[in-house]
């Protein structure tokens, strides 16, 4: 039901914009009026808006967003090429975020007030406040050639000679290209989640039942991993829902900077060239991804917290 409502929301106004844009063109250049009429007929823009909307909705359910206005290729084909790249980046990034932030948060929370805890907190806070595109540019400046170190490639997904490499070195090449963009995508979420993990863990450690568990004489390890862990995970599992849109939004900037042919750069180019069908396709797919993330976080929520049952 939510998806349906979303679909209703997303395309409504942009189609009106699309019409406005067309009319603007017509006034500007009367000679091309015929061509514009033909184009309008091609995209079904000569029909009244409600009819257009119904048509659009029908096509959308079949994931048919029409052709890109720029190169006439089907939108789904372009998105289909870009989606795996972005998905790969985002999934690896989410994986890294969770795999690093949980131990970091647990360490901070179990050693509160120590020097290491406070320095970790400060580092995380600084990371959390740095704009991704700035970090990306600093990395390019200092590690990606220029006048300083030249450790990592800063452009695209593979070297030009990748075709002639063996499978193993091609994978290595791919990973080498992914280091900088992945770092940029990951560190923000990492810092946020570690902070939440620390706070959540400290919160749980203050609870009475933890004292009870300690009083029973359970080992610190049992108290920590069996009684505290599960309850502090609840907080960061719910964050998955907000992490995903942030990542997808972030990939617009990161993919543009590092010239990675993913959804983000596609969206950037679509917006630059006002490629309306492509933009609409992008937004819909991105929203569906977010929706999937929200659903996943709800399911995980049930898995982590036995008090919540799927209704």
């Amino acid at each position, binding site marked *: 039901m939510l998806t349906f409502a979303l679909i209703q929301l997303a395309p409504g106004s942009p189609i009106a914009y699309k019409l406005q844009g067309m009319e603007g063109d017509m006034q500007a250049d009367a000679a091309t009026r015929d061509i514009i009429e033909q184009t309008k007929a091609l995209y079904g823009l000569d029909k009244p808006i409600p009819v257009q909307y119904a048509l659009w909705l029908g096509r959308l359910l079949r994931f048919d967003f029409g052709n890109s206005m720029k190169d006439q290729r089907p939108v789904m084909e372009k998105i289909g090429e870009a989606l795996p790249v972005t998905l790969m980046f985002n999934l690896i990034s989410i994986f890294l975020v969770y795999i690093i932030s949980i131990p970091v948060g647990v360490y901070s929370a179990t050693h509160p007030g120590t020097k290491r805890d406070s320095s970790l907190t400060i580092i995380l806070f600084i990371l959390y406040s740095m704009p991704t595109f700035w970090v990306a540019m600093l990395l390019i400046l200092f590690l990606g050639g220029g006048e300083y170190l030249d450790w990592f490639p800063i452009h695209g997904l593979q070297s030009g000679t990748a075709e002639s490499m063996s499978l193993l070195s091609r994978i290595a090449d791919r990973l080498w290209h992914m280091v900088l963009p992945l770092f940029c995508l990951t560190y923000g979420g990492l810092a946020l989640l570690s902070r939440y993990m620390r706070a959540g863990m400290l919160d749980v450690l203050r609870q009475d039942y933890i004292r009870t568990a300690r009083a029973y004489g359970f080992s610190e390890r049992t108290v920590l991993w069996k009684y505290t862990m599960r309850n502090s995970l609840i907080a960061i599992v719910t964050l998955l829902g907000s992490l*995903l849109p942030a990542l997808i939004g972030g990939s617009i900037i990161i993919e543009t900077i590092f010239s990675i042919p993913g959804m983000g750069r596609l969206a950037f180019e679509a917006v630059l060239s006002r490629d309306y069908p492509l933009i609409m396709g992008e937004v819909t797919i991105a929203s569906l991804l977010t929706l999937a993330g929200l659903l996943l976080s709800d399911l995980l929520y049930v898995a982590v917290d036995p008090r919540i049952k799927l209704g």
Partner: protein
Amino acid sequence: MNIATQPSDVRKHPNVVWRQFKKNKPALVGVLLVVVMALIALLAPFIAGDVPIAMRKDGRLYLFPNIVTYATLQAENLYRNFDRWEPGPDEFRWDPPVPYSPLRQDLRERLSPPCREHWLGTDDRGRDVLSRIIWGTRISMSVGFIAVGIAVVIGIFLGALAGFYGGVMDMLTLRLIEIWICVPSFFLVITVMAFLDPSIINIMVVIGLTGWPGIARLVRGEMLKQKQQEYSLAARASGLNDWRIIFRHLLPNALSPVFVSATFGVAGAILTESGLSFLGFGVPPPTASWGEILKQSQSFVDFAWWLVAFPGIAIFITVVSFNLAGDGLRDALDPRLRQ
């Protein structure tokens, strides 16, 4: 009666919060930095610009010509002359500390690294980076505050109505929130910016329109809580209308989490604005904005470190100080952490 103790406790609330807040040194630093930034934004013409703050020319005393627009100055036949004008005898000019306009191009000084004249260097058109950063503070601050202001107003209004009336109103608002958070906000912002003209007003409105669901949720939750309180019943029993109950009696008690959220929201809005400008969908070019300076520097990224470092540091400091202030505010408002 024992009611007397409770109202006095409530009235002290801001004091309690402030006392708690003062103990948190990083948060104080954050607030201080925010105030400094706001002052820089407000006083930008007095800190950087090529128009003097005061001057005596041709026997006439001009006070604060720097706060008048260039067009007005030109109309008085002032601007074209006096930027190269050396004061003669009986004349004087008092320039801002950074005597460069954020817009004046000087092609002989292109891409100069930081030096005595240009403390933070110049960009590819010879514009002074320090001056541009100072004027960029205006853009960032105003976008941050106004966008969050819009989000807060919408969020409070919808959240309060949803929480107070429940039923259909609540259901509709919740569905709207759910739809809204499905679309990744940065995607939504650049999509909308693609359809609109890039102007600062549009940016504020668009960022504001994407930011309200979180606040609406907070307010709704708080309203549900406050509605159950006895004073709410008392207000209703004394025959006040709904509007007055909501906005005069319930809402003030539901606002504190909104303040925290809004503080973080300003940091987020500033980040979004600079990200937008960085991609070229932000404030239109000649205007100085931090993200726009970074965008310009992209072509010279291999050597012009000053173009990359300084605007980034400006964004970073601003975001850090808002986050510190927000953290401090949250801790001060959280009764569980109060000693």
